[in-house]
Each structure stands twice: as structure tokens, then as C-alpha cells.
């Protein structure tokens, strides 16, 4: 039972992070391997606002989100658009964006380490336990989960009930057709990329309330986000949520029952199973 709830709490937060990558890869079609670093950036921001200003990390979302949005918009325009214009096909764009985002991610880590050192950072926010069905859970995890649910819910509503949101979904399904019906694919892609980065940064802030992080841990989160996005089916929102919950549960189960040091192996096992049996993901369309 304990595993179930902790797993769900973790999975919910993972969903928010993976949602960011889902928008970036599924809509803007950029394999952003610096995604984890954006998460760490959001975590750092929350850390500083809490330790320096005693401001709740939840409130820090209010300025982290727009800042991250702007930063990612700039990244898309300046770093990624030249590659998009240059690429002759999707395959080449993927290779180029992988290399470029690696470069970005590493540069970011290098700068972070140089400026603030490679130490781990964590802080105690709402660390008190809450009793639910006989087990104690950190309030911070619950609050993070709640925030993630709210944000994902808002995102879902926006994607399915608003015009720009529908345009985003259209580009995810078929960019060429979307262009033909009058959608400005470039702008929508930039919007999706910026929004995705913003979600990831917010997720980072939320995760920092209950996990210990350091400047170089971004890669691990990028991996998990990638596994979730692929498992769910690239571009599909429901898929991401389901896959994130599955991963959260699996990781928690393995950490509790077998060994906390095998969480990545557990994630990989799931990834391998997906690749072997359903590479398009749970909600994706089968490739011919």
C-alpha cells in the first residue's frame, strides 16, 4: 500500500516533467537532451528562493514558469531554428538536435558547477509527515503531487478546449497537414518548445522539495523523461500520464522491495519491454 501511494505520488511529479519533453519532442520535434538540465535549473531556482528569501517553492513557480518559458523560446529561436532550416530530413534534424542539446546541457552543467560548485543541495520544505491510511508520507510529496495534477489538468484543458492548444495537438499529429490548414507551424513549435521547457522547470522546482539533487543529475532525469515519453507514445498526453505513473510505481516498488540502487535498471527493463513489444508506445499509432 505504501509502495502504491508513494509510487503514484512520484509518478505524478514525473508526469509533469515528461509532459515538458513530450511537448518538445512530440510537437516541436526536437529531441531535447538538455531537458534534465532545465529541470535542475528550475530546482536551483526553487532552492534559492526558499533558502534566501524563505519564499515557498510553490510560489516560486509564478516567476520560474515565465522565465523558463522565455529562456526556452530564446533557445528555440537562436540555437535550434538554424538547425531546423538546415536539416534536409527529420533524421538529420534529430541527430543535429541531439548534438546541439547535448552541447547546451553540458555547457549548462559546466557553468553551474563553476559558479556554484558540484555539491548536492536539498532543503527541508514541508518535510513533516502526513498520515494516510496508516502510513506516513512527506507533505512535500503530496503538495508536489497536487500541484502536478493541477498543472497537468490545466494543460489538458488548454490542449483540448482552446484554439492554440488544438493547434499544438494538430502539429503533433501531422505538421504538414497542420500547415495546410493555416496553422503557423514554426510559431506553434516555438510555443510548444517554450511551454515544454517551462513545465520541466516547474517540475524541477516541485521535485526539489523532496529529492536531493546536484548540478550533474540532469542526465538521469532526461533518461526517465525519455523513457516515459516513448512508453506513453510520443505526442500523446494521456500516454505520458499513464507511463509516468507506471514508472513511478515500478521505481518505488524496486527501491523498496529489492534495492534502491536498481531504480535505473528497473526503468531500463520497462524501456526494453516497450521497445520489444510496443515501440510506438501505449497510445501511439503502430508504425508500418
Amino acid at each position, binding site marked *: 500500500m505504501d509502495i502504491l501511494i508513494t509510487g503514484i505520488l512520484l509518478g505524478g511529479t514525473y508526469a509533469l516533467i515528461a509532459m515538458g519533453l513530450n511537448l518538445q519532442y512530440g510537437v516541436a520535434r526536437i529531441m531535447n537532451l538538455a531537458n534534465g538540465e532545465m529541470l535542475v535549473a528550475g530546482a536551483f531556482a526553487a532552492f534559492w528562493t526558499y533558502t534566501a528569501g524563505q519564499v515557498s517553492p510553490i510560489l516560486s513557480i509564478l516567476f520560474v514558469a515565465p522565465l523558463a518559458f522565455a529562456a526556452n523560446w530564446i533557445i528555440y529561436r537562436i540555437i535550434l531554428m538554424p538547425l531546423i532550416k538546415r536539416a534536409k530530413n527529420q533524421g538529420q534534424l534529430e541527430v543535429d538536435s541531439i548534438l546541439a542539446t547535448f552541447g*547546451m546541457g553540458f555547457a549548462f552543467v559546466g557553468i553551474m558547477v563553476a559558479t556554484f560548485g558540484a555539491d548536492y543541495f536539498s532543503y527541508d520544505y514541508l518535510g513533516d509527515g502526513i498520515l494516510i491510511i496508516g502510513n506516513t508520507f512527506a507533505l512535500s510529496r503530496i503538495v508536489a503531487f497536487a500541484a502536478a495534477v493541477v498543472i497537468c489538468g490545466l494543460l489538458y484543458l488548454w490542449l483540448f478546449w482552446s484554439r492554440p492548444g488544438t493547434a499544438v495537438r494538430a502539429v503533433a499529429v501531422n505538421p504538414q497537414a497542420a500547415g495546410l490548414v493555416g496553422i503557423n507551424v514554426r510559431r506553434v513549435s516555438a510555443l510548444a518548445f517554450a511551454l515544454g521547457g517551462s513545465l520541466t522547470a516547474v517540475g524541477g522546482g516541485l521535485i526539489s522539495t523532496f529529492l536531493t539533487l546536484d548540478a550533474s543529475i540532469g542526465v538521469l532525469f532526461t*533518461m526517465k523523461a525519455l523513457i516515459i515519453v516513448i512508453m506513453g507514445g510520443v505526442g500523446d498526453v494521456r500516454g505520458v500520464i499513464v507511463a509516468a505513473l507506471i514508472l513511478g510505481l515500478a521505481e518505488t516498488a524496486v527501491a523498496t522491495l529489492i534495492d534502491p540502487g536498481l531504480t535505473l535498471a528497473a526503468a531500463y527493463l520497462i524501456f526494453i519491454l516497450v521497445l520489444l513489444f510496443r515501440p510506438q508506445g501505449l497510445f501511439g499509432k503502430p508504425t508500418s
Partner: protein
Amino acid sequence: MTSREARTLVIAVILFGLAALLPLSGNGYFISIGVTIAMYVVLSTSWALFSGPTHYISLATAAFYGLGTMIVATGIETVPYVVLLVISAIAGAVMAALVGLATLRLSGVYFVIFTLGLAEMIRQLVSWLQNNLGGSRGLYVLTDLTEDHIYWELLALAGFVFLIGWWIGRSRLGFAMRIIGNDETVAAHCGINTARSKILLFMVSGMVAALVGALLAPRWTYIEPNIAFSPLLSFEVVIMALLGGTKRLWGPLVGVIPFTILLELIEANYPSQTILVLGIAFLLIVYLVPQGVVGRLEQSFAKFRKGGT
């Protein structure tokens, strides 16, 4: 063999001969750098054998390398060194086959993602196995092998890799890989078993990387999974190969030498900035020299020749 090929062969043999003379200098520092350079030459050239024509970026080098190192470290007390080398090579090939079967039938993105975390995952597995099956984390590797020996071994392996690369380039497999790299649908419709070709070539690459790890194990006297599975190794190899250029067999070599020297300088003066340097290198490659330095030079030569006549 054409006269041009014969000329290339002679030059290669001379260069190898010269390189083999390095340990005779007696200068420990030079020999040490020589070993590092030789190591990177082998790793990046064998990396380019697969990732060059297919454009599937492999980040699994560290996983194979670590596997080779750990095999030697685990078995050195009980099994002869040469046998361990053979086991490492086979293990590398087997692991490559498994990874290949899982990912190479799909598009390149899955492959990159899978290999991204592979080294870390295997490191976790090995640590867990060590903790739970008894045996300590750290293993001692004490042999009579000196850096000189390791250098010559690596040089021999490098020669082997170049020979294999040359042979593949003239073989059906090499032709198939070039076609696959151009258009995989056409390749399939020409009768090429694309998955099998990719897996075979990946196995060669993995086998070599594992062997390098095994050969280098005696350099460390004390080995832990953290040391064996170095997270940055995969990225360094990718950068060196791409920096040099993967169209030519000797392209990666051009990237290895300057970059290794650069890394040594950074290690000596700004040790915590290695990651930043790698990041900048990636960005430089993507924006300035996507075909590598060799590719860029050849393009310029071609233009120059066209303009000149």
C-alpha cells in the same frame, strides 16, 4: 590492390612503425599521453565504423569499456590475462548483439536514448551484484604489464581496427551500410537485411571497445565500478570522432590528437571544467564542422579545385 591503395598502406605502415618507437624514448609522461591517445584512437575509429555510415549515434562506448575492465578486474586473480581478453571481446560482442536486437530495428532516436543510460545502468547492476554476491567493491589488478606493454597492445589493436575498417569498406557489408545510411527503405527494397547488417557492425564496434577496456585495466591498480564506467567517456569518443570526421577511416584520428591534448590541458589547469569543454565542443561540431574537420577540408579542396581550373 591499386597503386593508390598500396601507397596508403606503405604510409600507414611507416606511421605505425614510428608510433611504435615512442616507448623507447623512456619519457614516462609522453608514454602516458601516448597510451591515452592510442586508446582514444581505437575507441573513436571503431565507433565511427558503425555510427559513421548509419548515423546512429552510439553512446554505449563507456558501457563496453567498463564491461571489459570489470571482467579483467574480477578474473585477474584466477584466470590468465589472455583468456580474460578473449572473454571481454566475446562479452562485448554479445552485449552489442543484445542492444542491437532491441533497438536497431527501430529508428535512430531509440538507439541513442538507450545507449545514453546504458553505462550507468550496467554500473548500477554491477555494483548491486558485487554487494549482494559477496566480493568487495574495489578490485586490485596487479600485473607485470607496464605502460609500454599497454601502448604496444593498443597500437596493435589500432592496426587491427584500421584493417577491419578497410576490409569492411570494400566488402558487401560496407556497401550495405552506405546504402542504409542513405535511405533505409531503398536498402530494404534492394534485398538488404538492414537489421542484421547494423547489428553485425555494432558487434564489431562493441567488441573492440570492450577489448580496450580490458587492455587498459592493468593501468589502474584499483578498480571500482565508478572508475570502470566513466560517464564522460562515451561523449568524449563521439566528439573526437565527429570533430575529425567519419567519412574517412583516418578521420577520427585527426580529431583525437588535438582534443586529447586539449583535455589534458583542461584537466591540469581547470579540472572541473571538463564538462563545459565537452559542451562547447558539441556546439562547435554541430554549427561549424558538421562533417568534421576532414570533411570540411575536403569540401574546401573540392571547391578550390573547381574554382582553379
